């Protein structure tokens, strides 16, 4: 709870617009990473579609605003829901079969949504993009608004992640990650579980996208589907610790500020490219040398316990833990 209190309090001791921004982005990424983690971490299916849902969310929300005049900050949960339904359809295609087709379909899905955004000119404005009416607010107030909104979404995402982690649903997802055939054979409706996980994951991406659209007052096919967004979600989750509740949050809070300062530290003519390459390097290194991520690795170091499991089981007394250490060697 400590961090939450700090974050709620922060804007009051005079954060300037830029820092509000920075934190707003950090929250956005954290929430999306937590969402990605549900399909990518708990269930172990690498989804490249969350970027697609981010963009889809932007457009759906943007169109609702421009055509129906529904304010995005109110509709975003609904937008998330719509995108979750799309996710169900995509999941049905991609998740019926086990294995590699999922990653392909999810990537293709992202391309397709972007493609449609670009080519359905009459609806989306094509490459010219969609420009939204501004929220007429004092800049700082506006900053606060987005700050707290996204903070709320982040808190929600974490709550959901904890809930799932504790629930039988989460148990099933982890079972799927560990051994899908066995899980199915143990009476878990794997297709259904996977699709639901995918939908939840998509919901957060879409909401983030929707809010982002209002934040920029503008959507176009390039910035709604910036591949670096997807890369960030994944790297943050992996770095923090895949499959844990707090890993993605940690990852986001470390990586995002770091990235945005990188631009101000490095000689600007290369910063951008280096930025991308560095993310790639981090991804490779983490995957290769610290696949468990910071959080779990730290926990192992501190407690010499194996990776965290279902909280409800964590009531384990110290004794067997000792025994386990011996057995592990």
């Amino acid at each position, binding site marked *: 709870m400590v961090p939450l209190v700090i974050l709620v309090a922060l804007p009051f001791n005079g954060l300037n617009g830029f820092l509000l921004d920075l934190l707003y982005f950090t929250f956005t990424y954290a929430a999306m990473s937590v969402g990605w983690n549900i399909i990518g971490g708990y269930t172990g299916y690498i989804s490249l579609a969350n970027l697609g849902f981010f963009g889809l969310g932007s457009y759906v929300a943007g169109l609702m605003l421009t055509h129906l005049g529904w304010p995005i900050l109110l509709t975003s949960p609904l937008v998330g829901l719509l995108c979750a339904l799309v996710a169900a359809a995509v999941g049905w295609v991609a998740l019926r079969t086990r294995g590699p087709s999922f990653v392909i379909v999810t990537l293709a899905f992202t391309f397709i949504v972007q*493609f449609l955004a670009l080519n359905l000119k009459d609806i989306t404005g094509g490459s010219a993009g969609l420009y939204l009416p501004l929220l007429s607010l004092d800049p700082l107030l506006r900053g606060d608004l987005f700050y707290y909104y996204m903070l709320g979404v982040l808190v929600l995402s974490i709550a959901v992640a904890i809930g799932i982690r504790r629930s039988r649903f989460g148990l099933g997802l982890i079972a799927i990650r560990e051994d899908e055939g066995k899980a199915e054979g143990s009476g878990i409706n794997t297709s259904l579980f996977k699709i639901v996980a995918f939908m939840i994951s998509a919901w957060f991406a879409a909401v983030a996208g929707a809010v982002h659209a209002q934040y920029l007052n503008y959507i176009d096919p390039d910035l709604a589907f910036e591949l670096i967004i997807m890369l960030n979600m994944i790297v943050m989750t992996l770095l923090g610790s895949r499959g844990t509740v707090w890993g993605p949050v940690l990852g986001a809070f470390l990586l995002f500020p770091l990235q945005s300062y990188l631009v101000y530290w490095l000689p600007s003519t290369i910063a951008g490219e280096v930025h991308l390459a560095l993310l790639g390097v981090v991804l490779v290194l983490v995957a290769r040398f610290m696949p468990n991520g910071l959080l779990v690795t730290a926990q192992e170091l501190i407690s010499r316990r194996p990776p965290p499991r279902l909280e409800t089981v964590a009531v384990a007394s110290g004794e067997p833990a000792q025994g386990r250490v011996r057995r592990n060697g």
Partner: protein
Amino acid sequence: MLLIQGLVLGILVGGMYALMASGLTLIFGVMRLINIAHAAVIIFASYLSWQLFIGLGVDPLLSIVILVVVFFIAGALLQKFVLSALIDKDLSLALLATLGVANVLEGSEGAFWTSSFHSINTGYAARTYQFGEIFVPEIRIITFAASVILLAGLYVLLTHSNLGRAIRATTQNRGVAQLVGVNVNRITMIAFGIGIAVAAAAGPLMGMYYPFYPNSHWGWIGKLMAIVVLGGLGSFRGTLLAALILGIAEQVAILYIPANWAAMVFFVFLFAVLIVRPQGFFGHVARESL
């Protein structure tokens, strides 16, 4: 007439698609890994070939030889020191690693060569042959021929050499291959190297054909994935056929629907295949691992 023109161009471009995709198939075959960095490798090779041409005046077709060797080694090393460890642990980690590699390549291309278009313009092969109404650019014939030759070489390697047999055995069944005394890990490393080398070979050809820029690989990987899925993941013959089909489909489509919709052809096929027949049109019945 228009249709025939489209067919001709389609076949010519399809040959190159086949070369670009075959490496991806090979890698998937032996490692069950989707190499997301595959197109990025191709583009990277294009850049190097461009650099060699501009800097040292090395003919792009000649540079293929150099690149193949270099990339084979690089690929093998990557597999040995990064991927192999992950394959056993958790395939999805390997997948993410390739995603990382893709971005490293994209980023460094941007840093070295800026992110503007590049294209390899050899002085020669600017001519265009005309057969009645049909126009056939010389450059395309050259790239097509080169692709076919390289593919033929790869095919012979896979079918008529011990290495090839070992690779095919590993592709069909790792366990059994191991039992019959194939050094699976070494074969995997080599096969991955070959896959990357093939991508490298495609690079210069792609660069003579199309302009390229650092993040153009995203567009390509989408196309390539559509091809390998249509061809039935891991099936070499299937990939060749699928590449031709999609190449023609694309070129013909451009003639009849707006150019900006033609790119959709690939994804339509992709989804159609996955819905109708998840194992691909030419893939053997995938037996679910229990």
